[in-house]
Protein backbone atom coordinates (compact mmCIF):
# COMPACT_ATOMS: atom_id res chain seq x y z
CA UNK A 1 0.00 0.00 0.00
CA UNK A 2 1.42 3.35 -0.99
CA UNK A 3 -0.45 5.58 1.42
CA UNK A 4 -2.08 4.42 4.63
CA UNK A 5 -4.72 6.72 6.06
CA UNK A 6 -4.39 8.13 9.54
CA UNK A 7 -7.17 9.48 11.78
CA UNK A 8 -5.94 12.98 10.95
CA UNK A 9 -5.94 12.46 7.18
CA UNK A 10 -9.41 10.91 7.27
CA UNK A 11 -10.76 13.70 9.48
CA UNK A 12 -9.25 16.26 7.12
CA UNK A 13 -10.83 14.71 4.04
CA UNK A 14 -14.26 14.53 5.65
CA UNK A 15 -14.05 18.02 7.16
CA UNK A 16 -13.03 19.50 3.81
CA UNK A 17 -16.11 17.99 2.14
CA UNK A 18 -18.34 19.19 4.99
CA UNK A 19 -16.89 22.67 4.69
CA UNK A 20 -17.80 22.74 0.99
CA UNK A 21 -21.30 21.57 1.88
CA UNK A 22 -21.65 24.25 4.55
CA UNK A 23 -20.83 26.91 1.98
CA UNK A 24 -23.57 25.53 -0.29
CA UNK A 25 -26.32 25.25 2.28
CA UNK A 26 -28.01 28.65 2.53
CA UNK A 27 -30.46 27.53 5.21
CA UNK A 28 -27.65 26.35 7.48
CA UNK A 29 -25.61 29.45 6.84
CA UNK A 30 -28.48 31.78 7.76
CA UNK A 31 -29.35 29.81 10.89
CA UNK A 32 -25.75 29.30 11.96
CA UNK A 33 -24.13 32.60 11.02
CA UNK A 34 -26.69 35.40 10.72
CA UNK A 35 -28.98 34.54 13.64
CA UNK A 36 -26.28 34.47 16.32
CA UNK A 37 -24.75 37.66 14.90
CA UNK A 38 -28.04 39.54 14.96
CA UNK A 39 -29.52 38.28 18.23
CA UNK A 40 -27.18 39.90 20.78
CA UNK A 41 -27.88 43.32 19.34
CA UNK A 42 -31.63 42.85 19.45
CA UNK A 43 -31.18 41.96 23.11
CA UNK A 44 -29.48 45.24 23.80
CA UNK A 45 -32.61 47.35 24.47
CA UNK A 46 -33.90 44.69 26.88
CA UNK A 47 -30.63 44.63 28.78
CA UNK A 48 -30.57 48.44 28.93
CA UNK A 49 -33.80 48.26 30.89
CA UNK A 50 -32.49 45.67 33.35
CA UNK A 51 -30.91 46.70 36.64
CA UNK A 52 -27.71 44.97 35.71
CA UNK A 53 -25.55 47.31 37.80
CA UNK A 54 -27.39 46.16 40.92
CA UNK A 55 -26.18 42.61 40.22
CA UNK A 56 -22.62 43.88 39.87
CA UNK A 57 -22.60 43.63 36.08
CA UNK A 58 -22.47 45.97 33.12
CA UNK A 59 -24.37 45.93 29.85
CA UNK A 60 -21.24 44.64 28.16
CA UNK A 61 -20.77 41.84 30.64
CA UNK A 62 -24.32 40.69 29.98
CA UNK A 63 -24.22 40.93 26.20
CA UNK A 64 -20.79 39.41 25.63
CA UNK A 65 -21.53 36.03 27.25
CA UNK A 66 -24.98 36.21 25.65
CA UNK A 67 -23.32 36.54 22.23
CA UNK A 68 -21.13 33.51 22.92
CA UNK A 69 -24.19 31.62 24.12
CA UNK A 70 -26.12 32.43 20.96
CA UNK A 71 -23.21 31.39 18.78
CA UNK A 72 -23.03 28.06 20.62
CA UNK A 73 -26.78 27.44 20.65
CA UNK A 74 -27.69 28.47 17.11
CA UNK A 75 -24.35 28.43 15.32
CA UNK A 76 -23.16 25.09 16.66
CA UNK A 77 -25.89 23.11 18.40
CA UNK A 78 -28.88 23.92 16.19
CA UNK A 79 -26.96 23.77 12.94
CA UNK A 80 -25.25 20.52 13.83
CA UNK A 81 -28.48 18.73 14.77
CA UNK A 82 -29.77 19.55 11.28
CA UNK A 83 -26.51 18.42 9.65
CA UNK A 84 -26.28 15.11 11.53
CA UNK A 85 -29.93 14.38 10.80
CA UNK A 86 -29.63 15.21 7.13
CA UNK A 87 -26.48 13.11 6.69
CA UNK A 88 -28.17 10.19 8.38
CA UNK A 89 -31.36 10.47 6.30
CA UNK A 90 -29.30 10.77 3.09
CA UNK A 91 -27.53 7.52 4.16
CA UNK A 92 -24.22 9.38 4.13
CA UNK A 93 -23.37 8.25 7.66
CA UNK A 94 -24.12 4.62 6.79
CA UNK A 95 -21.94 4.82 3.68
CA UNK A 96 -19.09 6.41 5.64
CA UNK A 97 -19.29 3.61 8.18
CA UNK A 98 -18.50 1.03 5.49
CA UNK A 99 -15.02 2.53 5.13
CA UNK A 100 -11.99 2.99 7.28
CA UNK A 101 -13.34 5.97 9.24
CA UNK A 102 -14.08 5.15 12.85
CA UNK A 103 -17.43 6.24 14.29
CA UNK A 104 -15.91 9.00 16.38
CA UNK A 105 -14.05 10.31 13.33
CA UNK A 106 -17.28 10.49 11.33
CA UNK A 107 -18.99 12.51 14.05
CA UNK A 108 -16.00 14.81 14.63
CA UNK A 109 -15.20 15.30 10.94
CA UNK A 110 -18.80 16.25 10.27
CA UNK A 111 -18.77 18.69 13.19
CA UNK A 112 -15.39 20.32 12.49
CA UNK A 113 -16.44 23.01 9.97
CA UNK A 114 -19.44 24.11 12.02
CA UNK A 115 -17.31 24.04 15.18
CA UNK A 116 -14.73 26.23 13.50
CA UNK A 117 -17.50 28.57 12.36
CA UNK A 118 -18.87 28.78 15.89
CA UNK A 119 -15.42 29.51 17.28
CA UNK A 120 -14.74 32.23 14.72
CA UNK A 121 -18.15 33.69 15.33
CA UNK A 122 -17.63 33.81 19.08
CA UNK A 123 -14.30 35.55 18.60
CA UNK A 124 -15.84 38.10 16.21
CA UNK A 125 -18.71 38.74 18.62
CA UNK A 126 -16.29 39.12 21.52
CA UNK A 127 -14.20 41.57 19.52
CA UNK A 128 -17.31 43.50 18.48
CA UNK A 129 -18.61 43.65 22.04
CA UNK A 130 -15.27 44.84 23.32
CA UNK A 131 -15.21 47.68 20.83
CA UNK A 132 -18.90 48.63 20.78
CA UNK A 133 -19.80 48.09 24.42
CA UNK A 134 -16.60 49.21 26.11
CA UNK A 135 -16.00 45.86 27.75
CA UNK A 136 -12.62 45.91 29.46
CA UNK A 137 -9.97 43.30 28.71
CA UNK A 138 -10.73 39.95 30.39
CA UNK A 139 -9.27 39.39 33.85
CA UNK A 140 -8.88 35.65 33.45
CA UNK A 141 -8.84 34.99 29.68
CA UNK A 142 -7.82 31.37 30.21
CA UNK A 143 -11.09 30.67 32.02
CA UNK A 144 -13.12 32.37 29.31
CA UNK A 145 -11.28 30.43 26.60
CA UNK A 146 -11.71 27.15 28.47
CA UNK A 147 -15.40 27.89 28.86
CA UNK A 148 -15.75 28.51 25.15
CA UNK A 149 -13.92 25.28 24.23
CA UNK A 150 -15.93 23.20 26.67
CA UNK A 151 -19.06 24.83 25.25
CA UNK A 152 -18.10 23.81 21.71
CA UNK A 153 -17.46 20.19 22.62
CA UNK A 154 -20.56 19.97 24.79
CA UNK A 155 -22.83 21.51 22.15
CA UNK A 156 -21.47 19.18 19.45
CA UNK A 157 -22.05 16.12 21.65
CA UNK A 158 -25.54 17.28 22.64
CA UNK A 159 -26.30 17.91 18.96
CA UNK A 160 -25.49 14.25 18.21
CA UNK A 161 -27.76 13.15 21.07
CA UNK A 162 -30.58 15.39 19.82
CA UNK A 163 -30.11 14.13 16.25
CA UNK A 164 -30.81 10.63 17.56
CA UNK A 165 -34.39 11.67 18.35
CA UNK A 166 -34.80 13.90 15.29
CA UNK A 167 -36.47 12.19 12.34
CA UNK A 168 -36.19 14.85 9.66
CA UNK A 169 -34.27 18.04 9.10
CA UNK A 170 -37.52 19.98 9.46
CA UNK A 171 -38.31 18.47 12.85
CA UNK A 172 -34.87 19.60 14.05
CA UNK A 173 -36.44 23.02 14.53
CA UNK A 174 -38.67 21.46 17.18
CA UNK A 175 -36.31 18.97 18.80
CA UNK A 176 -33.67 21.64 19.39
CA UNK A 177 -36.12 23.96 21.18
CA UNK A 178 -35.95 22.48 24.71
CA UNK A 179 -32.20 22.85 25.07
CA UNK A 180 -32.15 26.26 23.33
CA UNK A 181 -34.96 27.75 25.43
CA UNK A 182 -33.80 26.27 28.73
CA UNK A 183 -30.29 27.53 28.08
CA UNK A 184 -31.43 31.02 27.07
CA UNK A 185 -33.66 31.48 30.10
CA UNK A 186 -32.03 29.43 32.84
CA UNK A 187 -28.35 29.12 31.91
CA UNK A 188 -27.53 32.79 31.97
CA UNK A 189 -27.53 33.45 28.24
CA UNK A 190 -30.39 35.96 28.03
CA UNK A 191 -30.88 36.50 31.75
CA UNK A 192 -27.74 36.50 33.92
CA UNK A 193 -27.94 33.94 36.74
CA UNK A 194 -26.81 36.75 39.05
CA UNK A 195 -30.25 38.31 38.58
CA UNK A 196 -32.20 35.21 39.62
CA UNK A 197 -33.07 34.36 43.27
CA UNK A 198 -30.07 32.68 44.94
CA UNK A 199 -31.49 29.21 45.61
CA UNK A 200 -33.03 29.04 42.15
CA UNK A 201 -29.77 30.23 40.58
CA UNK A 202 -27.76 27.54 42.34
CA UNK A 203 -29.99 24.89 40.78
CA UNK A 204 -29.71 26.54 37.37
CA UNK A 205 -25.93 26.42 37.68
CA UNK A 206 -26.16 22.68 37.19
CA UNK A 207 -27.74 22.96 33.72
CA UNK A 208 -25.49 21.99 30.79
CA UNK A 209 -24.72 25.41 29.35
CA UNK A 210 -24.61 27.29 32.69
CA UNK A 211 -20.97 26.51 33.52
CA UNK A 212 -19.93 27.62 30.02
CA UNK A 213 -21.58 31.02 30.40
CA UNK A 214 -20.35 31.30 33.99
CA UNK A 215 -16.77 30.69 32.88
CA UNK A 216 -16.98 33.21 30.04
CA UNK A 217 -18.63 35.91 32.13
CA UNK A 218 -16.62 35.20 35.25
CA UNK A 219 -13.38 34.90 33.33
CA UNK A 220 -14.01 38.29 31.81
CA UNK A 221 -15.10 40.04 34.98
CA UNK A 222 -12.57 38.27 37.17
CA UNK A 223 -15.26 37.52 39.73
CA UNK A 224 -14.81 33.74 39.92
CA UNK A 225 -13.04 32.20 42.89
CA UNK A 226 -10.85 29.17 42.18
CA UNK A 227 -13.51 27.07 43.89
CA UNK A 228 -16.29 28.45 41.69
CA UNK A 229 -14.20 28.03 38.54
CA UNK A 230 -13.41 24.39 39.37
CA UNK A 231 -17.07 23.74 40.09
CA UNK A 232 -18.08 25.15 36.73
CA UNK A 233 -15.40 23.18 34.89
CA UNK A 234 -16.46 20.03 36.72
CA UNK A 235 -20.11 20.53 35.80
CA UNK A 236 -19.27 21.16 32.12
CA UNK A 237 -16.99 18.09 31.96
CA UNK A 238 -19.63 15.95 33.66
CA UNK A 239 -22.27 16.98 31.10
CA UNK A 240 -19.83 16.36 28.25
CA UNK A 241 -19.00 12.86 29.51
CA UNK A 242 -22.71 12.15 29.92
CA UNK A 243 -23.46 13.40 26.40
CA UNK A 244 -20.64 11.34 24.86
CA UNK A 245 -21.93 8.28 26.66
CA UNK A 246 -25.44 8.96 25.36
CA UNK A 247 -24.09 9.30 21.82
CA UNK A 248 -22.33 5.94 22.04
CA UNK A 249 -25.45 4.35 23.41
CA UNK A 250 -28.23 5.91 21.36
CA UNK A 251 -26.87 7.56 18.22
CA UNK A 252 -28.59 6.29 15.07
CA UNK A 253 -26.47 5.74 11.98
CA UNK A 254 -29.27 5.10 9.53
CA UNK A 255 -32.91 6.11 9.11
CA UNK A 256 -35.70 4.19 10.82
CA UNK A 257 -37.49 1.98 8.37
Amino acid sequence: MSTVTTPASRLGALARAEFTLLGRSKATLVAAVLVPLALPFSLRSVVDDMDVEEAGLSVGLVLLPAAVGFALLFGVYGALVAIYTSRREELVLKRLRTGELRDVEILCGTALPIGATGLTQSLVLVAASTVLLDVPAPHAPHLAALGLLLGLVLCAALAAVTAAVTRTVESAQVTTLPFVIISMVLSGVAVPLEMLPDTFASVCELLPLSPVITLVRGGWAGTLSAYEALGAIGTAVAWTVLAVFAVQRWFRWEPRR
Partner: protein
Amino acid sequence: MNTDEHEHVIEVTGLRRVYGGGFEAVRGISFAVDRGEVFALLGTNGAGKTSTVELLEGLAPPSDGRIRVLGHDPYTERAAVRPRTGVMLQEGGFPSELTVDETARMWAGCVSGARPPLEVLELVGLARRTGVRVKQLSGGERRRLDLALALLGDPEVLFLDEPTTGLDAEGRRDTWELVRTLRDRGTTVLLTTHYLEEAEDLADRLAILHEGRIAATGTPAEVTAAQPARISFELPEGYFVGDLPPLGELGVSGHEIDGNVVRLRTRELQRTATGLLVWAERAGVELRRLDVRSASLEEAFLGIAAREEVAV
Protein backbone atom coordinates in the same frame (compact mmCIF):
# COMPACT_ATOMS: atom_id res chain seq x y z
CA MET B 1 -0.86 -12.62 10.02
CA ASN B 2 -1.45 -13.79 6.47
CA THR B 3 -3.10 -17.04 7.37
CA ASP B 4 -5.89 -16.44 4.89
CA GLU B 5 -3.94 -17.26 1.71
CA HIS B 6 -5.20 -20.82 1.37
CA GLU B 7 -8.33 -20.45 3.46
CA HIS B 8 -11.75 -19.10 2.68
CA VAL B 9 -11.77 -15.34 2.26
CA ILE B 10 -15.30 -15.17 3.63
CA GLU B 11 -16.58 -17.70 6.11
CA VAL B 12 -20.09 -17.62 7.55
CA THR B 13 -21.32 -20.11 10.12
CA GLY B 14 -24.82 -20.31 11.61
CA LEU B 15 -25.51 -16.66 10.95
CA ARG B 16 -28.67 -15.14 12.41
CA ARG B 17 -29.94 -11.58 12.44
CA VAL B 18 -32.92 -10.57 14.52
CA TYR B 19 -34.08 -6.95 14.35
CA GLY B 20 -35.23 -4.87 17.29
CA GLY B 21 -38.90 -5.58 16.60
CA GLY B 22 -38.23 -9.35 16.80
CA PHE B 23 -38.25 -9.95 13.03
CA GLU B 24 -35.76 -12.67 12.14
CA ALA B 25 -34.35 -11.65 8.77
CA VAL B 26 -31.50 -14.19 8.65
CA ARG B 27 -32.23 -17.60 10.13
CA GLY B 28 -29.04 -19.56 10.47
CA ILE B 29 -27.07 -19.57 7.23
CA SER B 30 -23.59 -20.89 6.49
CA PHE B 31 -21.40 -20.56 3.42
CA ALA B 32 -17.82 -19.86 2.41
CA VAL B 33 -16.25 -17.93 -0.44
CA ASP B 34 -12.77 -18.65 -1.77
CA ARG B 35 -10.23 -16.15 -2.99
CA GLY B 36 -10.90 -14.89 -6.48
CA GLU B 37 -14.42 -16.26 -6.55
CA VAL B 38 -17.60 -14.41 -7.50
CA PHE B 39 -20.33 -15.52 -5.11
CA ALA B 40 -23.92 -14.39 -5.60
CA LEU B 41 -26.65 -14.23 -3.00
CA LEU B 42 -29.83 -14.58 -4.99
CA GLY B 43 -33.31 -14.00 -3.66
CA THR B 44 -36.56 -12.13 -3.89
CA ASN B 45 -37.07 -8.87 -2.00
CA GLY B 46 -37.16 -9.58 1.69
CA ALA B 47 -35.25 -12.86 1.37
CA GLY B 48 -32.52 -11.57 3.70
CA LYS B 49 -29.83 -10.64 1.15
CA THR B 50 -29.12 -7.12 2.38
CA SER B 51 -29.47 -8.14 6.02
CA THR B 52 -26.77 -10.73 5.40
CA VAL B 53 -24.41 -8.50 3.42
CA GLU B 54 -24.61 -5.74 6.03
CA LEU B 55 -23.33 -8.20 8.61
CA LEU B 56 -20.48 -9.27 6.31
CA GLU B 57 -19.59 -5.62 5.76
CA GLY B 58 -19.37 -5.22 9.54
CA LEU B 59 -22.11 -2.60 9.83
CA ALA B 60 -23.82 -4.50 12.63
CA PRO B 61 -23.02 -7.46 14.89
CA PRO B 62 -24.85 -10.73 14.14
CA SER B 63 -27.47 -11.91 16.62
CA ASP B 64 -25.85 -15.30 16.51
CA GLY B 65 -23.24 -17.17 14.48
CA ARG B 66 -19.76 -16.37 13.29
CA ILE B 67 -18.34 -14.34 10.41
CA ARG B 68 -14.76 -14.22 9.23
CA VAL B 69 -13.68 -11.90 6.45
CA LEU B 70 -9.99 -12.28 5.59
CA GLY B 71 -9.65 -14.12 8.88
CA HIS B 72 -11.14 -11.37 11.03
CA ASP B 73 -14.47 -10.50 12.59
CA PRO B 74 -15.64 -7.60 10.40
CA TYR B 75 -17.52 -5.93 13.26
CA THR B 76 -15.18 -6.20 16.24
CA GLU B 77 -11.96 -6.09 14.19
CA ARG B 78 -13.11 -3.34 11.88
CA ALA B 79 -9.71 -1.68 11.62
CA ALA B 80 -8.08 -4.90 10.36
CA VAL B 81 -10.71 -5.60 7.71
CA ARG B 82 -11.81 -2.25 6.30
CA PRO B 83 -8.61 -1.26 4.49
CA ARG B 84 -8.91 -4.49 2.46
CA THR B 85 -12.61 -4.40 1.55
CA GLY B 86 -14.71 -2.30 -0.78
CA VAL B 87 -18.42 -1.82 -0.25
CA MET B 88 -21.29 -0.74 -2.44
CA LEU B 89 -24.51 -0.39 -0.47
CA GLN B 90 -27.91 -1.06 -1.97
CA GLU B 91 -28.57 2.65 -1.88
CA GLY B 92 -25.63 5.00 -2.17
CA GLY B 93 -25.28 7.63 0.52
CA PHE B 94 -23.61 10.70 -0.85
CA PRO B 95 -24.26 14.33 0.01
CA SER B 96 -26.38 15.61 -2.87
CA GLU B 97 -24.67 19.00 -3.01
CA LEU B 98 -21.15 17.68 -3.63
CA THR B 99 -19.88 17.13 -7.16
CA VAL B 100 -18.76 13.73 -8.40
CA ASP B 101 -15.14 14.82 -8.18
CA GLU B 102 -15.49 16.26 -4.66
CA THR B 103 -17.19 13.08 -3.49
CA ALA B 104 -14.46 10.89 -4.97
CA ARG B 105 -11.68 13.01 -3.50
CA MET B 106 -13.31 12.99 -0.08
CA TRP B 107 -13.60 9.22 -0.21
CA ALA B 108 -10.05 8.85 -1.51
CA GLY B 109 -8.83 10.71 1.59
CA CYS B 110 -10.40 7.98 3.72
CA VAL B 111 -9.06 4.96 1.80
CA SER B 112 -5.60 3.45 2.30
CA GLY B 113 -3.66 3.11 -0.94
CA ALA B 114 -6.32 4.96 -2.90
CA ARG B 115 -5.97 5.11 -6.66
CA PRO B 116 -6.29 8.50 -8.33
CA PRO B 117 -10.03 9.34 -8.18
CA LEU B 118 -10.19 10.16 -11.89
CA GLU B 119 -8.86 6.69 -12.74
CA VAL B 120 -11.76 4.86 -11.07
CA LEU B 121 -14.29 7.38 -12.39
CA GLU B 122 -12.98 6.58 -15.88
CA LEU B 123 -13.34 2.88 -15.15
CA VAL B 124 -17.08 3.26 -14.54
CA GLY B 125 -17.60 5.79 -17.31
CA LEU B 126 -18.11 8.87 -15.17
CA ALA B 127 -14.95 10.72 -16.15
CA ARG B 128 -16.93 13.31 -18.09
CA ARG B 129 -19.34 13.97 -15.24
CA THR B 130 -16.81 15.01 -12.59
CA GLY B 131 -18.16 18.55 -12.20
CA VAL B 132 -21.79 17.49 -11.82
CA ARG B 133 -23.49 17.56 -8.42
CA VAL B 134 -24.61 14.18 -7.11
CA LYS B 135 -28.25 15.34 -6.98
CA GLN B 136 -28.18 15.89 -10.75
CA LEU B 137 -26.93 12.38 -11.56
CA SER B 138 -29.33 9.77 -12.87
CA GLY B 139 -30.03 6.72 -10.74
CA GLY B 140 -27.70 4.64 -12.90
CA GLU B 141 -24.91 7.20 -12.68
CA ARG B 142 -25.23 7.22 -8.92
CA ARG B 143 -24.84 3.44 -8.85
CA ARG B 144 -21.71 3.77 -10.96
CA LEU B 145 -20.29 6.46 -8.67
CA ASP B 146 -20.93 4.12 -5.76
CA LEU B 147 -19.11 1.32 -7.60
CA ALA B 148 -16.18 3.64 -8.38
CA LEU B 149 -15.77 4.49 -4.70
CA ALA B 150 -15.92 0.83 -3.74
CA LEU B 151 -13.01 0.24 -6.13
CA LEU B 152 -10.89 3.19 -4.97
CA GLY B 153 -8.69 1.22 -2.62
CA ASP B 154 -8.12 -1.80 -4.91
CA PRO B 155 -9.92 -4.02 -2.39
CA GLU B 156 -9.20 -7.72 -2.00
CA VAL B 157 -12.84 -8.33 -1.17
CA LEU B 158 -15.69 -6.48 -2.80
CA PHE B 159 -19.26 -6.43 -1.45
CA LEU B 160 -21.82 -5.33 -4.03
CA ASP B 161 -25.43 -5.07 -2.88
CA GLU B 162 -27.61 -5.12 -6.01
CA PRO B 163 -24.96 -3.40 -8.12
CA THR B 164 -27.03 -3.25 -11.31
CA THR B 165 -30.46 -2.35 -9.97
CA GLY B 166 -31.54 0.81 -11.77
CA LEU B 167 -29.02 0.40 -14.58
CA ASP B 168 -30.05 0.10 -18.22
CA ALA B 169 -29.05 -2.97 -20.23
CA GLU B 170 -25.80 -1.41 -21.39
CA GLY B 171 -24.82 -0.21 -17.93
CA ARG B 172 -25.54 -3.66 -16.60
CA ARG B 173 -23.29 -5.31 -19.18
CA ASP B 174 -20.51 -2.80 -18.41
CA THR B 175 -20.74 -3.60 -14.72
CA TRP B 176 -20.64 -7.35 -15.39
CA GLU B 177 -17.57 -6.87 -17.55
CA LEU B 178 -15.92 -4.88 -14.78
CA VAL B 179 -16.71 -7.53 -12.18
CA ARG B 180 -15.21 -10.22 -14.44
CA THR B 181 -12.04 -8.18 -14.93
CA LEU B 182 -11.71 -7.75 -11.18
CA ARG B 183 -12.28 -11.44 -10.59
CA ASP B 184 -9.60 -12.30 -13.13
CA ARG B 185 -7.19 -10.11 -11.20
CA GLY B 186 -7.92 -12.08 -8.03
CA THR B 187 -10.55 -9.93 -6.33
CA THR B 188 -13.12 -11.86 -4.33
CA VAL B 189 -16.61 -10.58 -5.05
CA LEU B 190 -19.77 -11.14 -3.05
CA LEU B 191 -22.82 -9.70 -4.73
CA THR B 192 -26.54 -9.80 -4.18
CA THR B 193 -29.04 -9.68 -6.97
CA HIS B 194 -32.59 -10.52 -7.83
CA TYR B 195 -31.70 -10.85 -11.51
CA LEU B 196 -31.32 -14.55 -12.27
CA GLU B 197 -29.50 -13.77 -15.46
CA GLU B 198 -26.92 -11.83 -13.51
CA ALA B 199 -26.25 -14.66 -11.07
CA GLU B 200 -26.15 -17.24 -13.86
CA ASP B 201 -23.73 -15.15 -15.96
CA LEU B 202 -21.43 -13.79 -13.31
CA ALA B 203 -21.31 -16.10 -10.35
CA ASP B 204 -18.88 -18.95 -9.92
CA ARG B 205 -21.11 -20.13 -7.12
CA LEU B 206 -24.37 -18.88 -5.70
CA ALA B 207 -26.79 -19.37 -2.86
CA ILE B 208 -30.52 -18.88 -3.23
CA LEU B 209 -31.86 -17.20 -0.12
CA HIS B 210 -35.47 -17.57 0.78
CA GLU B 211 -37.06 -16.27 3.97
CA GLY B 212 -33.73 -15.98 5.71
CA ARG B 213 -32.46 -19.45 4.83
CA ILE B 214 -30.31 -20.88 2.08
CA ALA B 215 -32.66 -22.93 -0.07
CA ALA B 216 -30.05 -24.07 -2.60
CA THR B 217 -26.36 -23.52 -3.15
CA GLY B 218 -23.63 -24.54 -5.56
CA THR B 219 -22.45 -23.57 -9.04
CA PRO B 220 -25.24 -22.31 -11.30
CA ALA B 221 -25.05 -25.66 -13.13
CA GLU B 222 -25.36 -27.66 -9.91
CA VAL B 223 -28.31 -25.67 -8.65
CA THR B 224 -30.00 -25.99 -12.03
CA ALA B 225 -29.31 -29.72 -12.28
CA ALA B 226 -31.07 -30.33 -9.00
CA GLN B 227 -34.27 -29.04 -10.57
CA PRO B 228 -36.68 -31.00 -12.80
CA ALA B 229 -37.37 -30.08 -16.42
CA ARG B 230 -40.91 -29.00 -17.33
CA ILE B 231 -43.38 -29.81 -20.06
CA SER B 232 -46.73 -28.11 -20.39
CA PHE B 233 -49.49 -28.42 -23.02
CA GLU B 234 -53.22 -28.13 -23.51
CA LEU B 235 -55.20 -31.40 -23.36
CA PRO B 236 -57.00 -31.97 -26.66
CA GLU B 237 -60.78 -31.58 -26.50
CA GLY B 238 -62.55 -34.65 -25.17
CA TYR B 239 -59.39 -36.05 -23.57
CA PHE B 240 -58.64 -36.40 -19.86
CA VAL B 241 -55.38 -36.90 -17.99
CA GLY B 242 -56.33 -40.53 -17.58
CA ASP B 243 -56.19 -40.93 -21.35
CA LEU B 244 -52.47 -40.15 -21.33
CA PRO B 245 -50.02 -43.04 -20.96
CA PRO B 246 -49.24 -43.82 -17.30
CA LEU B 247 -47.16 -40.78 -16.24
CA GLY B 248 -44.81 -42.81 -14.06
CA GLU B 249 -43.77 -44.86 -17.06
CA LEU B 250 -42.93 -41.66 -18.91
CA GLY B 251 -40.52 -40.65 -16.12
CA VAL B 252 -42.77 -37.89 -14.82
CA SER B 253 -41.99 -36.98 -11.22
CA GLY B 254 -44.97 -34.72 -10.65
CA HIS B 255 -47.84 -33.04 -12.44
CA GLU B 256 -50.43 -30.29 -12.09
CA ILE B 257 -53.64 -29.68 -13.98
CA ASP B 258 -54.91 -26.15 -14.37
CA GLY B 259 -58.17 -26.14 -16.36
CA ASN B 260 -57.20 -28.03 -19.51
CA VAL B 261 -53.49 -27.20 -19.20
CA VAL B 262 -51.25 -29.99 -17.96
CA ARG B 263 -47.85 -29.32 -16.43
CA LEU B 264 -45.37 -32.15 -15.98
CA ARG B 265 -42.11 -32.21 -14.08
CA THR B 266 -39.45 -34.71 -15.07
CA ARG B 267 -35.80 -35.51 -14.57
CA GLU B 268 -35.72 -37.47 -17.83
CA LEU B 269 -36.82 -34.85 -20.28
CA GLN B 270 -36.10 -36.81 -23.46
CA ARG B 271 -37.94 -39.95 -22.32
CA THR B 272 -40.98 -38.00 -21.11
CA ALA B 273 -41.15 -35.81 -24.20
CA THR B 274 -40.75 -38.76 -26.57
CA GLY B 275 -43.42 -40.78 -24.79
CA LEU B 276 -45.83 -37.90 -24.85
CA LEU B 277 -45.25 -37.04 -28.52
CA VAL B 278 -45.49 -40.63 -29.65
CA TRP B 279 -48.81 -40.92 -27.82
CA ALA B 280 -50.12 -37.76 -29.50
CA GLU B 281 -48.98 -39.00 -32.90
CA ARG B 282 -50.75 -42.32 -32.46
CA ALA B 283 -53.90 -40.71 -31.09
CA GLY B 284 -53.84 -38.24 -33.96
CA VAL B 285 -54.23 -35.20 -31.72
CA GLU B 286 -52.49 -31.88 -31.56
CA LEU B 287 -50.92 -30.76 -28.25
CA ARG B 288 -51.58 -27.03 -28.33
CA ARG B 289 -49.36 -24.57 -26.49
CA LEU B 290 -46.76 -27.27 -26.10
CA ASP B 291 -43.84 -25.99 -24.08
CA VAL B 292 -40.82 -28.15 -23.32
CA ARG B 293 -38.02 -26.64 -21.29
CA SER B 294 -35.00 -28.04 -19.52
CA ALA B 295 -34.30 -26.85 -16.00
CA SER B 296 -32.95 -23.32 -15.71
CA LEU B 297 -31.91 -21.23 -12.78
CA GLU B 298 -35.20 -19.43 -13.16
CA GLU B 299 -37.09 -22.68 -12.75
CA ALA B 300 -34.96 -23.50 -9.76
CA PHE B 301 -35.62 -20.10 -8.27
CA LEU B 302 -39.36 -20.13 -8.84
CA GLY B 303 -39.57 -23.73 -7.70
CA ILE B 304 -37.86 -22.91 -4.44
CA ALA B 305 -39.98 -19.85 -3.82
CA ALA B 306 -43.19 -21.78 -4.44
CA ARG B 307 -42.16 -24.80 -2.37
CA GLU B 308 -41.18 -22.75 0.64
CA GLU B 309 -44.37 -20.75 0.53
CA VAL B 310 -46.41 -23.92 0.69
CA ALA B 311 -44.29 -25.19 3.58
CA VAL B 312 -44.86 -22.01 5.61
